[in-house]
């Protein structure tokens, strides 16, 4: 029986909540920042696993895929611990410095190498890059439809799916044929915690590592060399911040606040 392959693309990112800025030098202090699984990707993993649960388990294979330095293996293990069947790490010095275009090139090559993928799921964006561009660019490279900001998969079978996407002021429901790619918002599910069985599996699982050679990728089409954009400057925003505290009794506070609203022409 042919299994339906679902690929979930994930990324390891520095957890930004810990970021502090050195007030003297106006630079970032990295100390104490843990690498984590991109929070938006947890919903993508969960959705992949949930889709498998809609079918009988042997019908579907959920594969986690990431591109990054060797330590990115950790997040693939995390994905396995919450129910993903297998995982692949794309790692090579040549992949470093990739923009969204070069990233989608590399992911597309891996997905073609895996072969016969019916659905690709991504988080809506990453915590570090914040672009949300890899999903649509990847889908375009694979020449398959892409639905961004998916908030619900209403129906799915081997050939098509009904998916609802969130726009700023509305929901839109589409029917698309598979293969297809989607990016998900956090509305779509609540990720589960790892099971004991999953944790044990994650410990012992072998994660294959594919490099540029195995992907038959030319060094000039991946990483920074294969990117169309390049960062030329990184800086911390200058925060010129002054706060005016409104003091007094609640009545006085509200009266002053009302005055502020008037001065600002809001009322």
């Amino acid at each position, binding site marked *: 029986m042919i299994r339906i392959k679902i690929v979930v693309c994930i990324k390891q990112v520095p957890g930004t909540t810990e970021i502090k800025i050195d007030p003297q030098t106006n630079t970032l202090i990295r100390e104490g920042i843990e690498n984590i699984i991109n929070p938006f990707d947890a919903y993508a993993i969960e959705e992949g696993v949930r889709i498998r649960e809609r079918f009988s388990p042997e019908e579907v294979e959920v594969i986690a895929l990431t591109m990054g*330095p060797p330590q990115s293996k950790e997040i693939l293990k995390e994905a396995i611990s919450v129910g993903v069947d297998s995982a692949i790490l794309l790692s090579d010095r040549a992949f470093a410095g990739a923009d969204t275009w070069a990233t989608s090139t590399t992911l597309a090559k891996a997905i073609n190498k895996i072969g016969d993928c019916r659905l690709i799921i991504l988080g809506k964006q990453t915590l570090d890059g914040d672009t949300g561009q890899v999903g649509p660019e990847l889908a375009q490279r694979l020449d398959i439809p892409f639905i961004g900001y998916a908030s619900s998969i209403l129906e799915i079978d081997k050939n098509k799916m009904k998916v609802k996407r*969130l726009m*700023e002021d509305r*929901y839109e429901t589409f029917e698309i044929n598979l293969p297809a790619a989607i990016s998900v918002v956090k509305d779509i599910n609540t990720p589960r915690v790892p099971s004991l069985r999953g944790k044990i599996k994650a410990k012992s699982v072998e994660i294959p590592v594919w490099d540029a050679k195995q992907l038959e990728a030319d060094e000039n089409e991946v990483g920074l060399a294969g*990117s169309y954009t390049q960062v030329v400057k990184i800086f911390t925003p200058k925060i010129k911040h002054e706060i005016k505290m409104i003091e007094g*009794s609640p009545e006085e506070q509200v009266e002053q606040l009302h005055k*502020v609203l008037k001065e600002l022409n809001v009322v």
Partner: protein
Amino acid sequence: MEIKIDEKTCTGCSLCKKVCLYDAVEIVKGKVVINENCVFCGACIEVCKFGSIEIAGLKEEEKNFSDYRGVCIYLEANGETIADVGFELISEGRKLARQLGVELSAVAVGSGIEKSVLEAFQYGLDKLYLIDSPVFSDNLDDIFAKALVQVITRYKPEIFLAGATWFGRTLIPKVAAILKTGLTADCTGLEIDKEKKILLQTRPTFGGNILATIITRNARPQMATIRPHVMEKKKIGEGKGDYKDRIEYYGDKIEYIKIDESKFKSKYKLISTEKELNENINITDYDVIVSGGRGLGGSEKFSMIKKLADLLGGVVGASRAAVDSGWISYPHQVGQTGKTVNPKMYIACGISGAIQHLAGMQTSDIIIAINKDPSAPIFKVANYGIVGDIFEVVPMLIKRLRDGKPLV
């Protein structure tokens, strides 16, 4: 390609190690060594006081882009109206076009937009490419991408800008991928490098903690999506009087692009569109946002936030905590997992101000925070702060606004 360290000038001061977010810098024998975690983000290069770090071995092909000329703006349509961000980009695009000494054009794709799109000329447009056809009545990404690609390949602008709306951020990457060029997401600043005549695209990353300036190398057009409400829209030439709504008036400034409709078949089928409770929930459209957070304690309390928002002509926003608790729906969520907003005024009621929330609203023009905890991080970004009980302050403010009578 590698990061090269000039050992002669490197002092091992470790400033670069401090700024590296990827743990890629090590100090070995008093000199910097870059390890395999490096993603070539350039943060270390920027911070090095001695100019000891550079990216080496990156081959730059000498490509001739002289046939790419002009700045082009995508005017996104929302039904039969044009989204405001398009007009903001025309105003910004005018500055860029002037600096480059080139033409400013725009492309609009939609169904029944012929009249509303004329407003774009009031912001100073040299040329409009208009694709108006019933095939574009739904937001089907693939055929919109095809239409834009057709215009861009024919007219070859050197710069192409679009709004970083949710539709734009899905559609434009497709366009860039088809054209095989770079795209910078969600920019908040644009500039022309005077010497090289290229576009410097600045955008927040890491949830707004860092700004990165990005260039497009080896490809054209230089493409970027721009965050709505960041650029200022500015009308010019109001004096067109009665003619300004007349298509004939603009004559050869409008170029109608005829498409072969039979070739615009979408792979997507739109089955339904739902607006939430016939309430317009695009909170990014409003000048005033009144947001409630965990401090509200329950869904029924949002009625008080709604009342205040209504009195100020605004809309209700919410923190993730309030949405996750089920007090209000997700489209109202402001922050990294919700929406990024830049209203003229943001009033945060009972929101402590987690960094993810701040990332979504700290660029608002004026921020007013009401919170009972004086050490709440929201006060670090607020322009006006009230330490107080929202259940006392907000109803009192509502009363003040309604009755118009001074309280003291």
